[in-house]
């Protein structure tokens, strides 16, 4: 039953996002219609172009016909979105969906690897720090983690482009893969893909793992002080197992929310990151669209990113109860 409720909630959220997007499109100063008209006129079309033609053009591109009443517009827009029709990009003259579907896997690739590495390294480091609490290693790691966490990922990215790409020439500066190659499952292509992904991923991971480590350290230290650890020790449970099955397992649980929040953050961060690396993923196109006032693409990108984040968070929420036996569906308690 919880699943039903949760999915329902997610749907509600998604509808809200679509509505917000719709509202933004309508609220845009100088909205798509004007822009389209300006563009048509600039590209050497006839001096006068009828309102109805503009409207239909607008509709082709954005799925919104400005001549119809607001609620009809809304309905049409929402139903198009649900059918997967995100309109047509003004700039590229291709369906938005097509552009985004091509870009999406790259962003997802980048972000999943980054998140997994960030949390993987952070959790292990945090656990080690907790066990070695008070030692020089702990002290140094804490400061190091804090420092790295204070660097914005894009600063790290710029810095690394500067050092690694330009000065040292080790790794490529931009792009998803070597432009000369064709996408294929060849070793050459895959390695090019990986080489291009290293710097963006490293920027995200290096600036992210510190925060995770510090949180994990706090959690683990708290678990270590708990009664059941003492009892386990008395029962003869070997230290190794205590560290993993007792302390580790229990300390990770609260990290789950951090994980969820990180997902959202990273999707947002991809915008700047992909710009720096000219990496044609979702974020790249979104920014591109904003700069060129390509409204359909802008909206589509926005929607798609929101959708991806929503799905990730939903999955995380639903699987949480699988890994944490302490949680039962609490919901809201007695109202005061």
């Amino acid at each position: 039953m919880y699943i039903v409720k949760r999915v329902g909630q997610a749907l509600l959220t998604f509808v809200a996002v679509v509505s917000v997007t719709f509202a933004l499109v309508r609220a845009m100063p100088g909205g798509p219609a004007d822009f389209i008209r300006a563009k048509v006129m600039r590209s050497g079309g006839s001096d006068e172009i009828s309102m109805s033609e503009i409207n239909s053009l607008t509709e082709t591109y954005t799925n919104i016909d400005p001549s119809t009443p607001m609620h009809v517009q809304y309905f049409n827009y929402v139903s198009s979105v649900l059918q997967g029709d995100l309109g047509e990009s003004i700039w590229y003259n291709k369906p938005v969906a097509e552009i985004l579907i091509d870009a999406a896997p790259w962003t997802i690739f980048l972000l999943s690897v980054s998140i997994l590495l960030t949390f993987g390294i952070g959790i292990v480091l945090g656990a080690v720090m907790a066990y070695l609490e008070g030692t020089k290693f702990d002290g140094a790691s804490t400061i190091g983690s804090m420092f790295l966490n204070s660097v914005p990922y894009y600063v790290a990215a710029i810095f690394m482009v500067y050092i690694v790409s330009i000065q040292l020439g080790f790794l490529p500066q931009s792009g998803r893969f070597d432009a000369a190659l064709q996408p294929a499952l060849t070793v050459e292509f895959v390695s090019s893909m990986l080489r291009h992904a290293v710097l963006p991923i490293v920027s995200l991971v290096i600036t992210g793992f510190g925060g995770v480590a510090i949180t994990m350290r706090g959690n683990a230290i708290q678990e270590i002080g708990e009664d059941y650890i003492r009892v386990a020790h008395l029962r003869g449970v070997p230290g190794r197992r205590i560290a993993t099955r007792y302390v580790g397992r229990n300390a990770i649980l609260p990290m789950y929310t951090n994980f969820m929040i990180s997902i959202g953050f990273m999707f947002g961060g991809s915008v700047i990151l992909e710009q720096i690396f000219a990496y044609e993923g979702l974020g790249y196109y979104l920014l591109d669209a904003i700069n060129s006032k390509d409204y359909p693409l802008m909206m589509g990108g926005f929607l798609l990113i929101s959708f991806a984040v929503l799905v990730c968070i939903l999955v995380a929420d639903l699987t949480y109860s699988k890994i944490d036996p302490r949680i039962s569906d609490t919901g809201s308690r007695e109202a005061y």
Partner: protein
Amino acid sequence: MTMQQTHTAAVEDPIFEVRDISVSFDMDRGESRVLDRVDMDIQRGEILGVVGESGSGKSMFASALLDAVVDPGVLTGDIRFNPEDGRSVDLLDRSDDEDIKDIRWRQIAMVFQGAMSSFNPTMTIEEHFRETLSIHGYDVDEGMERARDLLSDLYLEADQVLGSHPHELSGGMSQRALIALALVLEPEVLVMDEPTAALDLLMQRSIIELIKEIATERDLTIVFITHDLPLVANLADRLAVLYAFEFVEVGPSDDVLTGAKHPYTRALLNATPNLDTPREEMRPIEGSAPDPVNVPDGCSYHPRCPLADDLCVREDPPLDSSDPTDGHAAACHHVERVPDEVPLTLQEVTVDE
């Protein structure tokens, strides 16, 4: 000390011989001694009730019996453990780590207050049992059979309890499950540190009854730590009273309850609330227990004792100062005057059988 009997000599077949143990902590404000050169023998098969206020050192005593004093506390002294079937062991000989690991839980087990927090929240009760059995090299299936028996002896639904996670059990259930877990390796000694403190009165009573049953059934030696004197009154064979990190009185329960020799014990008995006692007659003990960093010189009870005099301020009376030929010892310089000067207000102290 010539031919005077010592309280330890009264114990004929000691399973524990505790000599001169102390537990100290190094704190910023000084050295904190939470157990001060304590001697005690524990009789095989007896139920010893260790009574004291919060902060009197009783939990430290319990931990000491398993050499499990929490870091950074330091345990010094001598504890000799004499198991039924085996050689006598110096518990505090830390040269061989394996020794103590062999003994803990297998021969001496411990049950804490707050049973629910003694389990790993992400493991089922069954997993706890299996883990404990396999760690100590026991046949798991056979052990689980035993576990099921234990659980039903404790009036628990074995299947239901085994399949649950700790937070799914009530206070009483988890406490009993913990007792079962402690007994699954069939130890000789069970140390219980305030096992019933977090439970309601009815549950407390029934657990005490259960403990009595299993003690006789399985021939256990039980050390029961509590602050609640009446609770342990009809359970224990002998009572030992802790004050300010030392034992101030020890003896057979009946003797201690009806004829306590130490002023503190008597005051404690007087302070025990009774439904029939009118409010005006309730007598709490004036003053408060000493800070472990700052224990008074001489007898540690003298600031609160109506009999205190110069001798008491100067000299700390040993536990045997009362000539304990009957196995009933008290640490007081003026044992003879105590019955008159600290009368027991209870009309009669009934000891249930």
